[in-house]
């Protein structure tokens, strides 16, 4: 590139006012229609969650975590709960384990349904924006029936869960799953069969596994390259029930470019993720045993924790979500908590991924990685 061309370069701030830029701002340097430099800026959504955690007791802490990403609230609050359970050495009843897992998978479904809508709306494909959002309402109905809240669920608590499944909740869950399962092939047809969508995403934002791992990506962006990297299988949590059912890690392997993924593969991966979640929920629902949903001593035990350190992680919708918690002896609050959201990696991956792409493709690349601002501004 000759220096003259760079003289004409133009800097554009993408966000924070842009409609699809809720709480993030990226500085793009453009030459003509092409991006030559991309500078992601975190900090527009900062809520000092880690500091806030130092002032909340162990039963209140998960509320902060679930507000980090409300789309996957059941999954987001879990690492904190798991860390507290590890330090306090709490036992979780069998029923609570399965209920947690079911709701976490429902949360993953809900998050994917939301993402479909959001991503397709950004691309201008409004049919596939509104259809999944109808199904999302059914998931939300089940959440509301169970916990009394659509997004800020506050469901898991150290030692178990807060609300029991009632018949109505089970009916709602069944309805949401059945409906979604019926419509999934239709969605796939609509989305993957659309020539416009294929043309818009094929070969866009392509990276290799090696690059992806170097950036620290996890979850669907890495599984779309054909790497079966999934915490649910690799490191099954004893307090969850993923090993009680039969499922395979969903991966997408594209014969055109093995070991690499583009935006189209990542869309295909989301379909497979949704199918796997449905499969897991359908297997777990009949296995629900009778019994308590919370360890009766948990409340007293979680009031004051012994000195300790714990690291807990969970496979979130967007990748590995983890939390490191340190407590002092007889502490009522955490001494220090460190959150690792999955999206900080996918957001800063844009720095290497976007240059060379067209400006119009920026939102395709960004959307296909599915970053959520809450996860990088902690």
């Amino acid at each position, binding site marked *: 590139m000759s220096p003259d061309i760079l003289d004409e370069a133009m800097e554009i701030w993408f966000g924070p006012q842009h409609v699809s830029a809720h709480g993030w701002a990226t500085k793009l340097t453009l030459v003509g229609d092409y991006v030559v430099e991309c500078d992601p800026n975190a900090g527009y959504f900062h809520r000092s969650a880690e500091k806030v955690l130092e002032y909340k007791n162990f*039963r*209140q802490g998960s509320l902060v975590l679930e507000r980090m990403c409300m789309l996957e609230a059941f999954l987001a609050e879990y690492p904190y709960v798991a860390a507290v359970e590890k330090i306090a050495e709490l036992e979780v009843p069998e029923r609570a384990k399965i209920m947690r897992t079911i709701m976490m998978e429902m949360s993953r479904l809900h998050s994917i349904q939301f993402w479909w809508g959001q991503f397709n709306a950004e691309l201008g494909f409004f049919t596939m924006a509104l259809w999944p959002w109808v199904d999302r309402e059914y998931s939300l109905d089940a959440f509301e029936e169970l916990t009394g809240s659509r997004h800020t669920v506050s469901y898991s608590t150290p030692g178990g869960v807060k609300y029991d499944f009632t018949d*109505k909740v089970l009916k709602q869950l069944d309805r949401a799953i059945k409906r979604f399962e019926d419509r999934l092939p239709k969605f796939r047809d609509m989305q993957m069969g659309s020539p416009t969508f294929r043309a818009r995403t094929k070969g866009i934002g392509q990276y290799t596994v090696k690059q992806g791992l170097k950036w620290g990506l996890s979850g669907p962006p890495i599984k779309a390259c054909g790497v079966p990297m999934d915490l649910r299988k690799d490191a099954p949590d004893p307090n969850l029930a993923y090993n009680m059912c039969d499922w395979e890690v969903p991966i997408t392997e594209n014969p055109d470019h093995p070991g690499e993924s583009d935006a189209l593969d990542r869309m295909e991966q989301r379909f497979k993720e949704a199918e796997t979640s449905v499969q897991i929920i359908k297997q777990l629902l009949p296995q629900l045993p009778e019994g308590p949903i919370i360890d009766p001593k948990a409340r007293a035990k979680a009031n004051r924790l012994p000195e300790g350190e714990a690291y807990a992680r969970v496979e979130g919708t967007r990748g590995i979500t983890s939390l490191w918690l340190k407590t002092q002896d007889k502490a009522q609050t955490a001494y220090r908590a460190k959150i690792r959201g999955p999206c900080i990696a996918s957001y800063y991956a844009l720095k290497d991924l976007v240059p060379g792409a067209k400006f119009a493709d920026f939102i395709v690349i960004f959307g296909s990685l599915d970053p959520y601002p809450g996860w990088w501004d902690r």
Partner: protein
Amino acid sequence: MGFFSVLGDIYQILKHTFRQVFMRPFTYFFPFEDRIYPERTRGRHIHVRKNCTACAQCVRACPVVAIRIDKEDKMYEKDAALYFDYTRCIFCGLCVEACRFDALFHTPVVDLSEGDRDDLVYGPDKITTLDRDPLEWRGRRFR
């Protein structure tokens, strides 16, 4: 793409559209209509002073310090007055969970907007009563 496949597509679209036309609308004409909320809905609280023992567990449980307790203000033998600040409350349900004397509950009333910020601090007279039935179908359907 032949002529008939285009016709088929159009038929699909029209089928979808017609089905939607005869369905009940998903939205509500909000201030006049309201839906029925589930039983567990975590809306504004109601404080049953008769059962309250002024133990202040709800105050301790609240993560955002939305509750203030006035132990001097007694109506029964050992109760206390509670002030709920709904500019702070995040409707987490921890206070209701903490109360072991059946004195504090959520109600399915979720529309709390007020013109004045101070009106959102519910004093003892407001928090112990419901000004309207939460499950009442208010007004009529407009469509």
